């Protein structure tokens, strides 16, 4: 598969035996997986399981201690920045900004930012350009961050805890937006510990526990195999802690 004139590789993301140590703390231990295009993947784990570290390493914001990460065959680095849109769990916007400023800020930073799509999404999210970022509720702020991240034309979207601290109504709106605005040739990796609300939009799930990958599979196959929901499997995996 040809993408943006680079290597012809079928997998969007390849992670090979990646480990990460912060001083003496082993955050991630020997993780390997690949992700294909056109998928929504859940990265599931409890707090401190290594989800954010994995996301940051894919985004190029943290260096693996060992192992390799490649996006369309390119090692993570300057070249892969334009292929990846990362939504961190801490907002990138400043408190003095309006929503309109935030959009301009993003479009200045990212050549692939699609202003028209961003405005359509804002409308869907019931946000307006004049809203002050400072006065947004937690749920509205998450909706803005998601709008900014998904309005870039990327191959891989990394959404770190997009549902954290968001009330059920806002959560539904975020899920609807994901289904509505997701581009089918890209993939979305979503980290979360809230599984039951979101499991219906996943193609695959990856479960990480204490920095190690304990499960990776197609959601429908896992349901067929275990006769259980992802939420139940998740609880089983983490009950052993």
């Amino acid at each position, binding site marked *: 598969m040809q993408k943006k004139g680079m290597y012809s590789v079928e997998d969007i993301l390849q992670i090979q035996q990646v480990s990460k140590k912060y001083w003496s703390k082993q955050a991630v231990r020997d993780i390997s997986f690949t992700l294909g295009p056109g998928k*929504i993947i859940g990265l599931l784990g409890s707090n401190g399981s290594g989800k954010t570290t994995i996301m940051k390493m894919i985004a190029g914001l943290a260096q693996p201690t060992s192992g390799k990460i490649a996006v369309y065959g390119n090692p993570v680095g300057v070249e892969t920045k334009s292929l990846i849109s990362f939504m961190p769990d801490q907002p990138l916007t400043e408190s003095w900004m309006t929503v309109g400023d935030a959009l301009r800020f993003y479009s200045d930073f990212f050549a692939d930012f699609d202003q028209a799509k961003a405005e359509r999404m804002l409308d869907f999210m019931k946000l307006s350009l004049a809203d002050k970022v400072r006065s947004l509720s937690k749920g509205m702020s998450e909706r803005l961050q998601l709008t900014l991240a998904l309005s870039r034309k990327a191959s891989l979207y990394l959404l770190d805890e997009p549902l954290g601290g968001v009330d059920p109504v806002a959560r539904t709106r975020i899920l*609807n937006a994901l289904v509505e605005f997701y581009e089918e040739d890209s993939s979305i990796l979503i980290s979360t510990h809230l599984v039951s609300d979101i*499991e*219906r939009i996943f193609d695959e799930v990856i479960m990480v526990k204490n920095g190690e990958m304990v499960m990776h599979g197609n959601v*429908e196959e896992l*349901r067929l195999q275990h006769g259980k*929901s992802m939420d*139940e499997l998740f609880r089983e995996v983490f009950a052993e802690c």
Partner: protein
Amino acid sequence: MTIEFDNNLPIYIQIMNYIKGEIVTGKLKPGDKIPSVRELASDLQINPNTVQRTFQELERETIVETRRGMGRYVTSEEGRIMTIKKEMAKDVLDRFIRGMRELGFQGEDIVAAVAESVGHEDAEKGDV
């Protein structure tokens, strides 16, 4: 369209059964157009690939057919729809019979119990 999903079962199978149900009860008629992947995915708030898989399976079972450039339609073969109805009836029966056997009923007793229940129902309807 709304479906109460059970997350313990594959979603594509639940949508398949729902669509089959709509067809055998006549809510979807032979030759009716069915929604696109995108429409159904955002309607049901599920992954588009899951809907895609549902449609592939329905095509494989020749319940749905694709007309190039026009979309997907319910089969216009009435015979096929009768078969689906029979298959669905068989599923219901199998489950029922298994349940009755677990309760200790044998072949004749099951038939008698069914006949009695159906008789009651008809009598009640007669009273109204």
